[in-house]
């Protein structure tokens, strides 16, 4: 497999934007039922943590070299469709390392993050889970679809649909996996809400 993720150097590179417009590279043969079950259950538990404000526990699912990235998507004419996603460092809604995510989590649980206090009601629906085993042992690239619903204050409601492209590593303890990379393909160009104070 020539798809260099830089894992051996301990650094997960951001995905090339050209990869993002193409379908996920699924395996010729379907992954084992057991692995499929394990990863789906991991995602359902993760969604529970997010939807019940267990942000510090959720953060424990991040590996130290996490790149948590949501590139901006643009309206492009057909001949320039390969540039639909802003390249890394050229415009993102999230572009976070472990350290900056830790800051975000500290803010969220501080009690003074007014955008989320009073707290929002969120629902993370995760589906369309597809798994590809990578050369690196116990490491998987996983595509999943999401719809995140947020309802806050009296009447505000936001719907954020999209796809996640994750790199998961098996881990001892915890929920069984660590998230080494999360690339979030949000299905909006202009973000249709007053902020993105939710995690995906």
């Amino acid at each position: 497999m020539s798809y260099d993720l830089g894992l051996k150097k301990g650094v997960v590179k951001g995905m090339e934007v050209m990869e993002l417009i193409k379908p996920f590279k699924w395996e010729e043969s379907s992954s084992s039922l057991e692995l499929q079950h394990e990863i789906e259950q991991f995602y359902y538990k993760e969604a529970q943590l997010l939807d019940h404000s267990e942000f510090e526990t959720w953060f424990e699912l991040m590996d130290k070299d996490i790149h948590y990235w949501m590139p901006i998507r643009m309206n492009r004419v057909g001949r320039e469709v390969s540039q639909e996603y802003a390249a890394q460092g050229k415009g993102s809604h999230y572009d976070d390392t472990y350290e900056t995510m830790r800051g975000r989590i500290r803010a969220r649980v501080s009690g003074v993050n007014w955008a989320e206090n009073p707290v929002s009601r969120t629902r993370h629906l995760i589906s369309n889970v597809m798994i590809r085993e990578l050369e690196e042992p116990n490491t998987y690239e996983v595509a999943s679809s999401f719809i995140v619903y947020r309802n806050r204050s009296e009447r505000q409601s936001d719907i954020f649909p999209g796809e996640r492209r994750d790199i998961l590593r098996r881990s001892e303890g915890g929920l069984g996996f660590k998230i080494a990379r999360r690339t979030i393909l949000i299905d909006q160009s202009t973000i249709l809400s007053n902020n993105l104070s939710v995690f995906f």
Partner: protein
Amino acid sequence: MSLNSEKWTPETIRALIDAENGALDPRIYTDQELYELELERVFGRSWLLLGHESHVPKPGDYLTTYMGEDPVVMVRQRNGSIKVFHNQCRHRGMKICRADCGNAKAFTCTYHGWAYNTAGDLVNVPFEEEAFSGFKKEDWGPIQARVEIYKGLVFANWDPEAPDLLTYLSDATPYMDTMLDRSEAGTEAIGVMQKWVIDCNWKFAAEQFASDMYHALSSHLAAVVAGLPPEQDLSNYEPHMKGHQFRSEWGGHGCGFYIDTARGSVRVGPIVDKYYSEGPAYEKAKERLTPLLPYDRMATSHMTIFPNCSFLPYGMNTVRTWHPKGPNQIEVWAFVVVDKDAPQEIKDELARQNVRTFSASGVFEQDDGENWVEIQSALRGYKSRTAPLAMQMGLNVQGKNNPDFPGKTSYVFSEEAARGFYSHWARMMSEPSWDTLKPQS
């Protein structure tokens, strides 16, 4: 310009802003008819920020944006200039260009196929010979706007009578230069526009960036927590107290800044903070800017160029246009600028810090969105719209002008720049002619 409104006369408009006593009529944020007048009298006559010249580096590069609610295309020409024209075909009103940005040799309206060159000239009308007689293509190109650039920022204006951009910017330019003129290399934009929607009136956002350091102490506590080193928390964090606010002599522009303090690693992270506080880039900026103002004493800063261009110098470097979408909604269109000659690792880190702090997901900005939405929601009420809002901070506060800094300055926590912003708004809304509006020398 006509000044015909059945509901709003120049006198009733001027009465909405009581700058002398520091009071605002809340209807300026909600009234549909005032909003329609704003599109004509404010957005139809002011210099509006569209982007950075580095957004369109090569001939044919374009981006589409808005002036008020009018869609426009900003295109780099073969001769290096930039043109801005109405993004609307004069035939049936279709948008000429429907992409956000890109490179084009021509723009063809997809409705009936009328084609325009990159200068906005109508160059091809299908079946012109067979179906038209004596049609003059040169009369039916899209409306062109005036374009001027201030140190990389591209502004446009519909009004041929408006003063030139430099006159319009009045005495605000030294404060703009703290972000735009640190190096002879100038600045460049990093990446593309980030866009999001906030259900609030555009003036809340514009005024806050002109005149409101005050809110940071309450609104942005969580952002401070996010930026502190792990071993530190709010209990041993000292907020800044020293600083000034600038109100432009003319034009409603405003700026606020802290002085004589660390620059602010909480906001930009230690790497960017260091770049802005010491070393060759800082020394060069100090040397260039010191003739204008005591740059070495300045730190975290906010600024608005009337009406809807705002930015945050000192390494936050977010630049945005608050595009109005009716009286109750805006779209934020934000981008990041950086010294063009900054090392690549500084550019990368500054961009990453910007997403972390001042973006839709930013730890600062997400709480601003919450505030403005809740204000706009409350303003649905009758009492909410009839009880005046207080804008008195800094009134009759003596001795706060600092002659070390250019222009009229007051204490950093003031509403002097807000009074300037709204007073200019009232003038734009009530004075039909630039003869009275323009700066009187």
